[in-house]
């Protein structure tokens, strides 16, 4: 009976339509008993309808943040609101609208894939037991596990377990999906399927909160992103803006690299690097047409002259001043 309201999250959710963020945290902080500060004053805003990439090295506080959002961990201070309601206080009202895959799938090995989903669905007091079998079958179908549904979960491969975990998040129509490293353990074909699935869900109006360490994955599917390092939020915003924040690199392809490098240096190009017939450097502030003209005037045979757009990875390195390594 309540089914229609749940299948129309956007129409039903005036809060989302009014532009209220799906996730909003203020000064969210978690200090573990050992004194370790895992998350430090996080102000995170996830707009409704976005595919939000949550980036950061291992140990940067992503998982602790996700656990606080899901009401599994009590914040030391600060507030977290999910779907407009405070967490962890409103778990019972909020979580039926949220599908989650947290730190990999966890399954009952002695139960079949189907029975695992039935168990998770019966744990949800808002899920209608009369439609349970049909919803479980639909979720299995959506992740391509129908053929393996009767197999015991302990016989599943890592990729199949990951799919089953995803199916559990898709048992009911959700307003928010929290997917922690959803493509872990999947082969390239499986990764592509998950990306397609995420795009599909997003086009249905579901907000997707996606944590990943694969930058190109975030770049391919996400509209917005946030970057964490050492428990702090470094930046957040639309992916295009984040990538634009990092400057691209000037690339000159020429059979005369030595001469080209000399001219480019005169023209104010910094951080020059020469590899075979490619000379790269940070573009100067002046008009690049003048730089090109100077090269030609000096007799450098220019085969290519471009500015390579910065990737999210460049943006990340620029922001954190470090590679994508484990934080100490």
């Amino acid at each position, binding site marked *: 009976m309540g089914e229609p309201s749940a299948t129309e999250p956007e129409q039903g959710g005036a809060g989302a339509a009014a532009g209220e963020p799906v996730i909003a945290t203020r000064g969210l902080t978690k200090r573990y008993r050992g004194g370790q500060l895992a998350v430090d004053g996080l102000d995170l805003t996830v707009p409704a309808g976005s595919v939000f990439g949550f980036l950061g090295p291992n140990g940067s506080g992503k998982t602790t943040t996700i656990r606080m959002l899901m009401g599994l961990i009590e914040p030391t201070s600060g507030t977290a609101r999910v779907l407009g309601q405070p967490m962890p206080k409103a778990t019972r009202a909020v979580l039926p609208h949220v599908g989650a895959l947290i730190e990999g799938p*966890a399954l009952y090995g002695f139960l079949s894939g189907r029975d695992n989903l039935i168990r998770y669905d019966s744990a949800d007091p808002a899920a209608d037991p009369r439609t349970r079998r049909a919803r479980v079958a639909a979720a299995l179908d959506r992740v391509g596990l129908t053929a393996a549904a009767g197999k015991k979960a302990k016989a599943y491969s890592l990729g199949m377990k990951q799919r089953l975990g995803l199916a559990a998040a898709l048992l009911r129509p959700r307003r928010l999906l929290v997917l922690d490293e959803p493509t872990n353990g999947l082969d390239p074909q499986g990764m592509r399927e998950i990306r397609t699935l995420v795009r599909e869900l997003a086009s249905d109006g579901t907000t997707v909160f996606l944590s990943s360490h694969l930058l190109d994955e975030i770049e391919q599917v996400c509209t917005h992103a946030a970057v964490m390092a050492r428990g702090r939020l470094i930046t957040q915003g639309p992916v295009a803006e984040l990538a634009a924040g990092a400057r691209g690199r000037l690339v000159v392809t020429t059979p005369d690299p030595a001469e080209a490098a000399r001219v480019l240096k005169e023209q104010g190009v910094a951080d020059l690097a020469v590899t075979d017939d490619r000379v790269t450097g940070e573009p100067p502030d002046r008009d690049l047409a003048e730089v090109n003209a100077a090269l030609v005037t000096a007799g450098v045979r220019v085969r290519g002259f471009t500015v390579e757009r910065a990737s999210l990875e460049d943006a990340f390195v620029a922001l954190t001043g470090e590679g994508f390594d484990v934080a100490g």
Partner: protein
Amino acid sequence: MSRADVAEQVRPVSPLWTFGLLRNELTTTFRRWRTLALLAVLAGVPILVGIAVKIETGDGSSPGGGGGGGPAFISQITNNGLFLVFTALAATLPFFLPMAVGVVAGDAIAGEANAGTLRYLLVAPAGRSRLLLTKYVTVVLFCLAATLVVAVSALTVGALLFPLGDLTTISGTRISFAEGLGRALLIALAVAASLIGVAALGLFVSTLTNSGIAAMATTVGLLITVQILDQIPQLHALQPYFFSHYWLSFADLMREPVYWDELAKNLGLQALYAAVFGSAAWARFTAKDITA
């Protein structure tokens, strides 16, 4: 405004649906290979006792060398197979039954945490109090199932190996076989109720750790420790508070009239343990950071 939004979208929850989790928990528990193995061991005890008594009395002598040693009622089995039920319960109550309950109770929360399934149950959202209550009810039902397995196995073996008929109570009066069966059922219920305290203790231990094995070992360790302490005369001031102290009171159900004093003390003590450790488990589990 948004608060009303979300509240509106959560369909009115049928109070009966909350039992969906309990039903699923029961089928999940009783489909576990480990649970079935524990029940098989429990079913095996009466078979062993029955066969041992049959062999020992094959030459016409009475078991236990004239009624001296062995568990209660063992000397009467050859006259009436129904006594195997009482003997088997008396033999399994000190260790086998509470150990099985300790394993299931200790694993209840810690095992889910260990497997990582706990976080998914909680974000489903099962609700912490609801999940804990479901787990406790399941463990208590396991106490009942385990006791009934021993009783039914004993009754079957007793009927196969020995004659059945009217029986004599401890007080010396004769009761009919039908009434004897009724007493046997009452005794099974009393034995199952005796395990409620261990169940609550095990559940509390289970909320303290993320390792199912550690929780099971701790619970069974406590069980053995308490049983040993209950044998030390210097501790007699404390002993009435040990959960195992009145366990053998179930034999009083075989008196005519039934002697209720210690039975009532046992039930009261079990209820006290359930209240104290149930509350402790609730306080711990509802405030715990789930990091597993």
